[in-house]
C-alpha cells in the first residue's frame, strides 16, 4: 500500500505547501500541548509545595534544633529545597543573636557543604543559584567558594559571585574582590562591584583606603566612588590626600565623602574643591557643602552661586535656599553680588523649596524700609525673570 508520504511526494510543489501546512499544524498542536502541560505541571507542583511548606513550618523549631534529624528531610529534594529557602530567608531577616542556631542547622544538616560543593562544581544556572544562596548564608566558610566563582569564565557566574560576596556583608568577603580589582583580573560590571564593596566595607572603609593607595586610573576612580558612599569622620586625613588627587573623578569622590564627615578639616577642603578647574568636582563639592551643618559654608556657596557652570550655580542655590534662619541675610548677599544669573538661580530654588513666601513675608515685616523696598523690588524682578520658556530662558541660564 502506498504511504501517505509518497502520496505527498507525488504532488510536486503542491506537496511542499502541504508539508508546510502539516508542519505548521503540528507546531500549533505542540505549542498548545506544551502550554497545557506546563500549566498542569506547575499547578500540581505548587500545590504540593504549599502543602509541604505548611507541614515543615509547623515543625520548624524541631528542625532547627535538630530534634527532627536532618536525614528526615535532607534526602527528599522538595523538602530539602523548602527547608533551605526558609532557612535562608530567616538568616537574612534575623538579628545577630538569632543567627547561631540557624547557621548551626545549616552546617549540621550538610546544607552548607552541599551549597559549597555546588558552587564549586556545578555549571550554569545551578552554579549561580548555589553562589547566591551561599551569599545569603553569611557564613565565613563560604567565602573561598564564592571567591573561586570570581575567576569563572562565564560573565554571569562572575556577577553572581560578586553579588553573593556582597550579600554576606562581611569585611573578609571584600578582600577577594579588591585583590582582583587591583590586579585588573576582574571583568564585571562596575555597578555590581561597587555595590558589593559598599556592602562589605560599610563598617571598615579604611580597608578601601589601603587598596586605593595601590591603584591608578579607572580602578582608583571606582574605589574612590565606593569610599565616597562609606566615608566616616574616622578616615581623617586620608580624605584630604584624595582631595588633592590628580584624577578629577577621585577628587569628586573625595568631595562627596567629605560631605559625610563634618570635622574641622571638612570646610577648608571643600572650599578648595569648590574652586577646582573641573566643573563636576566643583559640583560635588557644592553638593557636599549642602549636606554639612556649618554656617561657614555660606560664603563658599555664595561664590559658587556665581560659578560659570549652570549646574554648579543651581546646586549652590539649592543649598543656600535650605538655610532657613539665614535666608534674609543670604538674599542680601546674593543681591550684593550683582550677578543676575546667581539671583535667578537663588530665587528659583526658593520657589522650589517653598521658602519664597516666608522670605517675602520677612521682607514685609522688616524694620529697615529702604532696604526692604529695594530687596522686594529685586525679588519681584527676579521672580518675573525666572520661569521663562524658550530661547530667553536658555540664554538667561547659559554659561557666562
Amino acid at each position, binding site marked *: 500500500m502506498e504511504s501517505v508520504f509518497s502520496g505527498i511526494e507525488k504532488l510536486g510543489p503542491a506537496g511542499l505547501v502541504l508539508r508546510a501546512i502539516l508542519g*505548521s499544524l503540528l507546531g500549533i498542536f505542540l505549542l498548545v500541548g506544551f502550554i497545557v502541560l506546563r500549566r498542569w505541571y506547575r499547578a500540581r507542583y505548587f500545590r504540593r509545595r504549599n502543602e509541604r511548606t505548611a507541614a515543615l513550618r509547623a515543625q520548624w523549631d524541631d528542625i532547627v534544633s535538630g530534634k527532627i534529624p536532618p536525614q528526615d528531610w535532607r534526602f527528599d529534594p522538595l523538602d530539602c529545597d523548602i527547608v533551605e529557602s526558609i532557612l535562608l530567608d530567616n538568616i537574612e531577616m534575623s538579628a545577630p543573636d538569632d543567627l547561631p542556631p540557624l547557621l548551626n542547622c545549616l552546617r549540621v544538616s550538610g546544607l552548607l557543604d552541599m551549597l559549597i560543593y555546588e558552587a564549586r562544581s556545578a555549571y550554569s544556572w545551578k552554579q549561580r543559584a548555589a553562589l547566591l544562596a551561599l551569599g545569603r548564608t553569611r557564613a565565613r566558610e563560604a567565602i573561598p567558594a564564592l571567591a573561586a566563582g570570581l575567576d569563572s569564565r562565564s560573565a554571569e557566574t562572575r556577577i553572581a559571585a560578586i553579588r553573593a560576596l556582597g550579600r554576606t556583608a562581611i569585611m573578609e568577603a571584600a578582600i577577594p574582590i579588591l585583590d582582583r580589582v587591583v590586579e585588573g583580573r576582574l571583568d564585571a560590571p562596575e555597578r555590581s562591584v561597587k*555595590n558589593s564593596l559598599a556592602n562589605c566595607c560599610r563598617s571598615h572603609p579604611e580597608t578601601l583606603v589601603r587598596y586605593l593607595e595601590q591603584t591608578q586610573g579607572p580602578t582608583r576612580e571606582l574605589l574612590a566612588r565606593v569610599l565616597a558612599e562609606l566615608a566616616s569622620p574616622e578616615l581623617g586625613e586620608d580624605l584630604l590626600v584624595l582631595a588633592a588627587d590628580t584624577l578629577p573623578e577621585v577628587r569628586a569622590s573625595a568631595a562627596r565623602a567629605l560631605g559625610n564627615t563634618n570635622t574641622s578639616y571638612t570646610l577648608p577642603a571643600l572650599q578648595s574643591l569648590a574652586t577646582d578647574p573641573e566643573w563636576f568636582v566643583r559640583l560635588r563639592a557644592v553638593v557636599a557643602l549642602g549636606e554639612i551643618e556649618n554656617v561657614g559654608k555660606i560664603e563658599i556657596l555664595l561664590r559658587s552661586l556665581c560659578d560659570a557652570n549652570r549646574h554648579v550655580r543651581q546646586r549652590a542655590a539649592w543649598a543656600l535656599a535650605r538655610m532657613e534662619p539665614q535666608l534674609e541675610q543670604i538674599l542680601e548677599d546674593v543681591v550684593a553680588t550683582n550677578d543676575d544669573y546667581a539671583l535667578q538661580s537663588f530665587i528659583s530654588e526658593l520657589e522650589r523649596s517653598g521658602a519664597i513666601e516666608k522670605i517675602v513675608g520677612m521682607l514685609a515685616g522688616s524694620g529697615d524700609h529702604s532696604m526692604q523696598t529695594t530687596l522686594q523690588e529685586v525679588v519681584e524682578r527676579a521672580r518675573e525673570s525666572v520661569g521663562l520658556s524658550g530661547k530667553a530662558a536658555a540664554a538667561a541660564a547659559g554659561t557666562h
Partner: protein
Amino acid sequence: MRFLTVSNQILFIYYVLSNLIYLGLLIVAISRNVRHHHRLGSFRFELIKASPFTPPITLIVPAHNEERSIVSSVGALLGLDYPSLEVIVVNDGSTDATVERLQKAYDLRTARILYIADIATAPVRAIYRSPVEPRLFVLDKQGAGCKADAINAGINAATSPYVCVVDADSILERESLVRIMVGVLSDPGRVIAVGGIVRVLNGSRVVDNQIEQVRLPKRPIEVMQVIEYLRAFLVGREGWATFNMLPIISGAFGIFQRDLVKQVGGFRTHAVGEDLDLVIRMHRRLLEEHRPYHITFIPDPTCWTEVPTDLKSLARQRARWHKGLIDALWPNRDMLFRARYGRVGWLILPYMWIFEFLAPVIELVGYVTIILAMVLGVLSKAFFLQFLLFGYAFATLISIGSVLLEEMTVRRYANWREVARLLIYCLFEHFPYRQMTMVWRLQGLWQYLRGDLQWGTMKRVGISANPSQATSHE
C-alpha cells in the same frame, strides 16, 4: 497572465519570508526570555532600592484633557516603588479641569522655577509645585497640538539622568520602574534606553489605579488586541532587542537617558509616531558617532493601557500608527543600506519598509491578483486554498507562540478559561481581523499621502473617576 503568475509567486515568497522572520524572532525571544528570568533570580529588588548607586528617574506624564483620571493616575505614579523619583505632569493646553483637579488634590502653588528650554517647546505658562508632595511638579503649557511637545517640556524640566515617559491614562505596576532599571543597571555605560511591555487593561479590575485582578476583556475586538500586543512586544521587540535593532520604545512606557534625548533634539514635534521617530534618530546619532550603545527591551516591567473598544476608534488608531510609521521612516530613508548605519540600515529599516510599511499594499495587491488569477484560470483552486491554509496556519503558530511567551514570562492570566479563550482567539486573528487592520492601515497611508496628520480621538472607558472606586473594564 505572466504578470499574474509572477505577482503570485512574489506574494508567496513575501508571505513565507515575513512569517519565517517572525518565527526566527519567536525562537530568539523564547531563549532570551528564559535567560532573563534566570538572571532575575539573582536580583534582589530590595537591594537595588537600597543601593546608593541606583540612579534617580523623572516620570514625565503628558496630559491633555485628563480631568477624569489625572489625580488617581498621579497618585499611583507617586506610589511607585522606586527610591528616587520625580513626577512631572505636563498639562498640554487642556481645555478641561486637568490642572484644577491637581491643584485641589495636591495643594499646588505657583513656583517660578528656572525653566531652561534646551529643547524648544510651546510657551510654559506656569510651573506648580506641591508643598504636600515635594516630588511632584506640574508644568502648564500652551497646547501645541502634539504630545511630543509636552514630553519635550517635561524633559527640559527633568532633573534626573533618566526620564520615563508614561501616558496619563496608563497604569504602571508598582515594581515596574525597578524592573525596567535592571536593563540599565546591567550596563549603565552602554544602555541608553529601555522599553517595557505595554499590555491591555480592558477587562481587568482596577482599584486605586492599581491592577487588582488581571482578566481578559469580553469583546472579541479587545481580545484580538491582547494577542496583538503580546506578539508585538514579547516576540517582535524582544527579538529585535536581542540584536540591538529595537526600532521603537513605546511612548506609553520606556526610559531614556535624558541628556541623549536632549542631544538628538528631543521628540520631534508634530511627528505622528514620535516614539518610533526618536528611537531611530537615537540609533542614527550613536552610529554616526561610533559610540557603543544598547537599546533594549525587558519583558516583565508592565504598563497597562486602555485599548479601543469600538471599531471606529480602533480604525483611527491603526491608521494613525501607520501614518506614524511612514512619518518616521521617510525622513530617515537615507539610512537604508548605508554601511555606517550597520545592521540598523541593512536589516531593521529595510524590514520595516518591506514588511511593515508596504505590508498592507502588498497584501491588497496579493488579494486582487490571486482572485484575478483564479478567475482567469492561472491559479488552481486547490493551490489557492492550500496557500491560504498555509498562511493561516503559520501565522496562527506565531500568535500561539506569543501566548506561550506570556505563559513563560509573567503569566498574568491565572485561570484556564482565560488561556483557553486566548488560544481560541488566536485562531481568528488572521481571518478576518488581519484583513480589517489591512484596510485601516491603507486608510492611514492614504491620509498620509493627502497630508492629513491628525491624531484623532479614542473613545475611552476611563480608568477611574473616583480613586477609591474599583473599576472593571468590561
